[in-house]
């Protein structure tokens, strides 16, 4: 796993979210980006222009490179959204690209 969790281990019944249908345990207080990165996910999306794989760059909400689809809603900044139990997260493949970032 590409990250070490410094805090003591989560109790067995820690909350789970779903990434690409796969259950993934996270710690309360983590963002979606943190939870995915801790689980070894590096590519969060494919760009609409060339299909290149991308992951988080700034982790502070500025770059919009960690965009994922959460519960059916595209263009969510994984680094700014708190992980919640039962949340369904998917890689964003392509998806819309205008400046406003207006989802559906």
């Amino acid at each position, binding site marked *: 796993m590409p*990250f070490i969790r410094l805090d003591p281990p989560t109790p067995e019944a820690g909350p789970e979210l779903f990434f690409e249908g796969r259950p993934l345990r996270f710690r309360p*207080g983590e963002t979606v980006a943190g939870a995915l990165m801790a689980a070894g996910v590096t590519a969060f999306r494919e760009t609409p222009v060339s299909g290149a794989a991308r992951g988080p*760059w*700034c*982790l502070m909400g*500025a770059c919009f490179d960690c965009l994922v689809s959460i519960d059916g809603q595209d263009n969510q900044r994984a*680094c700014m959204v708190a992980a919640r139990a039962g949340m369904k997260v998917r890689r964003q493949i392509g998806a819309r690209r205008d*400046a406003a970032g207006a989802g559906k």
Partner: protein
Amino acid sequence: MSRWDAIVIGAGPAGIGGASLLAERGARVLLVDETPGPGGQIWRGIETVPESRAAILGPDYRAGAAEVARLRASGATLAFSTEAWRVEPDGTVWLRDAGGLRREAARHLLVATGAMERPVPLPGWTLPGVTTIGGLQILLKREGLLPRGPLALVGTGPLVYLYAAQCLTAGKRDLVLVDTARPGAMLAALPHLPRALLGHGPAYLAKGAGLLWQLRRAGIAVHTNARQIGIEPDGDGGLVLRFLGRGRHRLRLSRIGLHEGVIPETHLLRSLGCRMLWSAAAVAFHPARDRDLCSSLGHVHVAGDAGGVGGAMVALLEGRIAAMAILERLGHQVDPLLVSATRRARRAHLAARPLIERLYRPAPELLTPPDEVVACRCEEVRCGEIRASLAAGAAGPNQLKAFLRCGMGPCQGRICGPTLAQLTARIRGVTMEEAGWLTVRPPLRPVSVGEIAALASEEP
């Protein structure tokens, strides 16, 4: 909807300092921040961090607890997980939180939106596994995550050394520093040394020296004068870093952090139409401000890194200076001795700043990258296309955006903006101010058409 005396945007040291003082003196204040709690970049998560993590982050981090406690006691209304996505010069602020969109109005605005890391466009910087060093530090502060496997920290600036030292304290040893500062930087910074020995300057220098000593003692490898940096995938999920230092290097790594200093986050200020200035010393645009930290718009004050990067203490003090100016305008009495003492304290904390800026100035070639490098991460526009467009007559960042779509993606040019301005200045032979900046239009954060429609139907 009743009007607030002031809305403070950003709950880092600057917003905390400003909102606390305003509320303590009886002003009606709303403080908003899009993160879940107070602290900003330096004190992120200060109220919830486990003790073991705070110990790794160090004393400057812990210092935030007292300021945040003062904020909580001040009586300011606090709204976290709340984005300011549209701000108007008349003091209208459009917010978005879990409950949807809403609008608030204030007589004065205090913009304390902080800084962001300077983008570092170089070959391979868009690969997954490559982040900013500040981003890695956020993962440490917020999630308690430490990268596993060989990590390279590439760049220059205090944050490189601070994060490296925090890694060491957390027990990480497989760490290599790739320093991009030019060998002449030390000599060029020397004329700023006398001033840096005044005020609180020596404390900053001692802190820096302490970090360097900690890295040295731990035997961390440091490559100096790194140039021609490039990153490639290595096939099985890892990364290869190539650079020219003392000889050619090729390192295999599991993760790479890049950092070339921090620059004011002026997005919101540009959307308001605040006048911007170029600082050659800081290599960044910042808003014009008067002695009271008021921007070119009479009701908009700017405190902290958003006005010019000065660090946490300067941000806190600037928040208070702006708060005192706002209090006076609201008709409150403010002790002139307190004003002048706070101004003096701010100057004392800025004493080492010119030295730090010169010492860690990014190498010029990093600001105008080679043709093949992606400048706009959203629309994948390369520097070569930008150069060609400028040579064919594009006047500056806004025309480049119209011609090439760079700056039109979801980040709204936060990341490519500095490169567009640098390339314009270089190729068209104009000053940075003439090259200009990308114009910003709201929404500053993604807001859906459905949300706006819901807002419209609720309002009379």
